[in-house]
């Protein structure tokens, strides 16, 4: 871990500014005022509000960055500073770029060779289920692709208003995308007691509620979950597929965390489950699955690249999907290349394989340990209860706050979990997200923090959290 830097006031202010921007939060100036002139008992801010592995302190994968460097500066292709396979891969990728430059636009759906390799990846991942390149669009991030699909689904002028069923809790980007397009997000409650599992009765209830008042057109699921950390069982996924088939909903499956599953849990894609259910479902259920280069071991969120695979979509509609993507011109080229590298990493026998293997194994081990430690520590603290983190990037423990703390928060004009997170930031430098950002109902409080950090960062975080939490609960008892 690098030398800790003195806490910059501006870093803190940036954190507060971001908290302020969150939809459900409000702050008072007095909280900001407490910053000035206060000596801090810590040297660094630990920012775990993002699902961002690099920000959390994990280094980028060497092979990926070597290839990208050679693509950016092709003089490196012929130098011996980089391993031979990295240089060869760069050469191959540059061959797919128009004019041999990563500065050219690409085809709308992405560099054609890369799109093909994505479809091959999907087929491998899904045990042979065929995937067709013409159904795949690379985009500047999975959320961008989701927005484009929503633009086709949502008629902002329709009466009744278009609705999309979304999980509760749900990360705010998706909810904001839906509402900013003029549709309404209808929540279906995930069951915290069942580890944030999706409950079919809840889906039915949400749909019944929506019908008559709104025009529900789609169901959004995220698996593994964010913030929930739940990994769906095959049976649950089959139930969802039957549900959307019967109720005539378009299925939006956000699968960006598919590389992060823990313990005995396994990720299986909606596409695969759908295909294995056979006709009539396999031929009829309309599905969009999303993946991204932002998560997984590559963690290249800043490169902004993801893709959507469309299944059983009306060919006439596909023409308009093309138009929507064409307005964006194309996804950033470096992101497209990183996506290709993520899905086609070095193989045993390649010069870069040993290092790649060590780096990814280290990340995997660290994260698995973090999940274990975070659960242990948090569940050991009174007033805290964390559902098992089965997958994904976050722990999302529930806070049982004393009435005095809730009262104090109300006086300050903010949600109780925001108040908790603010105090946590001020007193320990740990920056976590309050549960109110995820739309949860009044009276329940949560904290979300990223578990994709180096192990020593997680230990440091958990240490600071423990002393803070203990003191906090005492102060407000």
């Amino acid at each position, binding site marked *: 871990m690098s030398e800790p830097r003195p806490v910059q006031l501006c870093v803190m202010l940036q954190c507060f500014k971001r908290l302020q*921007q969150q939809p459900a939060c409000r702050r008072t100036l007095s909280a900001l005022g407490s910053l000035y002139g206060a000596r801090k008992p810590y040297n660094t801010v630990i920012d775990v509000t993002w699902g961002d592995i690099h920000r959390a302190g994990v280094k*980028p994968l060497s092979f990926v960055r070597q290839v990208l460097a050679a693509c*950016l500066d092709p003089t490196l292709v012929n130098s011996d500073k980089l391993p031979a396979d990295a240089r060869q891969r760069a050469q191959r990728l540059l061959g797919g770029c128009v*004019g041999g430059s990563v500065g*050219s636009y690409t085809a709308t759906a992405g560099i054609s060779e890369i799109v093909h390799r994505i479809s091959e990846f999907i087929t491998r991942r899904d045990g042979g289920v065929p995937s067709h390149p013409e159904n795949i669009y690379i985009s500047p991030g999975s959320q961008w692709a989701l927005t484009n699909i929503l633009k*086709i689904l949502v008629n902002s002028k329709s009466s009744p208003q278009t609705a999309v069923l979304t999980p509760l809790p749900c990360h705010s980007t998706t909810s904001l995308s839906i509402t900013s397009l003029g549709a309404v997000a209808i929540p279906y409650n995930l069951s915290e007691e069942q580890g944030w599992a999706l409950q079919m009765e809840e889906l039915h209830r949400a749909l019944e509620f929506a019908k008559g008042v709104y025009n529900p057109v789609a169901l959004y699921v995220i698996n593994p979950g964010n913030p929930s950390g739940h990994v769906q069982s095959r049976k649950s996924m089959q139930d969802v597929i039957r549900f959307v088939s019967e109720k005539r909903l378009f299925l939006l499956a956000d699968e960006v965390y598919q590389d992060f599953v823990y313990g005995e849990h396994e990720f299986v894609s909606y596409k695969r489950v759908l295909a294995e259910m056979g006709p009539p479902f396999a031929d*009829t259920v309309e599905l969009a699955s999303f993946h991204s280069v932002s998560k997984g071991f*590559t963690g290249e969120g800043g490169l902004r690249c993801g893709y959507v695979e469309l299944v059983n979509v009306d060919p006439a509609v596909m023409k308009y999907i093309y138009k929507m993507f064409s307005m964006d011109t194309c996804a950033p080229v470096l992101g497209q290349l990183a996506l290709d590298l993520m899905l086609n990493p070095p193989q045993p026998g390649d010069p870069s394989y040993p290092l790649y293997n060590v780096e990814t194994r280290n990340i995997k081990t660290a994260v698995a340990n973090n999940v274990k430690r975070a659960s242990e520590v948090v569940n050991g603290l009174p007033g805290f209860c964390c559902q098992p983190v089965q997958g994904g990037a976050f722990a999302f423990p529930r806070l049982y706050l004393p009435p005095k703390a809730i009262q104090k928060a109300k006086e300050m004009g903010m949600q109780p979990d925001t108040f908790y997170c603010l105090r946590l930031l001020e007193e320990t430098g740990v920056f976590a997200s309050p549960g109110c950002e995820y739309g949860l109902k009044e009276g329940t409080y949560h904290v979300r923090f990223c578990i994709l950090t180096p192990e020593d960062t997680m230990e440091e975080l958990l240490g600071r959290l423990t002393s803070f939490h203990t003191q906090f609960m005492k102060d407000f008892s």
Partner: protein
Amino acid sequence: MTENGVSPRAKVLTIDTMNPTVKKVEYAVRGPIVQRAVELERELSEGMKKPFAEVIKANIGDAHAMGQQPITFFRQVLALCSYPELLNDSTFPEDAKSRARRILQSCGGNSMGSYSASQGIDSVRQDVARYIERRDGGVPCDPDNIYLTTGASDGIVTMLKLLVCGEGETRTGVMISIPQYPLYSAALAELGAVQINYYLNEEKCWSLDISELQRALDEARRHCNPRALCIINPGNPTGQVQSRECIEDVIRFAAKERLFLMADEVYQDNVYADGCHFHSFKKVLFEMGPEYSNTVELASFHSTSKCYMGECGFRGGYMEIINMDSEVKAQLTKLVSVRLCPPVPGQALMDLVVNPPQPGEPSYDNFIKERTATLNVLAEKAKLTEQVLNTVQGISCNPVQGAMYSFPCITIPEKAIKEATDNGQQPDMFYCMKMLEETGICLVPGSGFGQRDGTYHFRMTILPPTDKLKILLKKVKEFHQKFTEQYS
């Protein structure tokens, strides 16, 4: 009927159930002619015989695709940012290394792979603000008014989204130049906004007449609520560089009629013609004094895709927002958060564009050499294109004062017009399709950009390397003559 005799069930998402506004979206630059060009390329590569050896894509403003070289310094810094181990490599110049270190320090976890703040990396926005101040002779720029974007297009669409509201007669109207870059018309169609066309004056080198703005506005007021005025300077597809007086007139007009000004200035370094200069809207606005600079609402857009960089694939850009209501600005900040953040390599590249090598720095001489050479070659090709096209009977090309395109007016014989219309095609699409099939040259028909009724144009980039451009122009000339004869 399916195999077992059951009627196939209707899809959930069909042409009838989908968002109706999407049906009206057309984006000519990547439209049917380009799709056909891609097919032809595939056919050629499969060995099919064609009357040409290669497809030349003179349809899209993509300089690198046509062989323009990237700026060495920029790529060195970005390579260092990508793989910082190279900072130990002595073959990279020191100034590139120090730029890279600075950029990496401003990234979370010292990696370009971290998300940045939605508005963009702070230090980059500060550098952009300083660049704007230098460019505009000292007119102050607040970094808080700078939003980094995923290409200029992203900023333009976001602003239009903010501006569009209302129903029926109160529906937002947005004034756009005809001809225009079809992103604007596509975005307006998708948003269900009212497109208000104002015609640029072809006889006067595509200049903008205030009287025409007034005409368009007055007419529009009868059926919608005009709120914004978009202007592209230097122009796309037309290439005109607006005079300072014209910019002042537009600002006065916007002030008087209470319109939000959107100034698309992505081609600001692409100015070729003698006597033409780029004047930023921001600079002119502030030089007109507080009566205007305190009130006129303006968004200016820039990009890493054009000028001398041509780095389209990075999707880098920014917008500067002037005099926006603070509550609306808060909404804007919320809206951009849906995108999470702009691509960080694009942000890093923008940082280099606004903060290039300085005199005395190791990379300065080479940087200036490369930049000058690129811009000079473009200027030559602009002139060459205008000259050659004007030798063709039935083609008339205004001077290409700036940007990257020629937009000549073409005469299409009556017979051809009839055949086109009988086929349900725009005559210039018919013309361009024929040209594509017979010569392999892919252009975009003027109908994709808008033009006065009864006139026809095509847009051709000036980007192919000079030798190829000469061949291209010769083939266009030959095709036009043949086409004219064939349909006389």
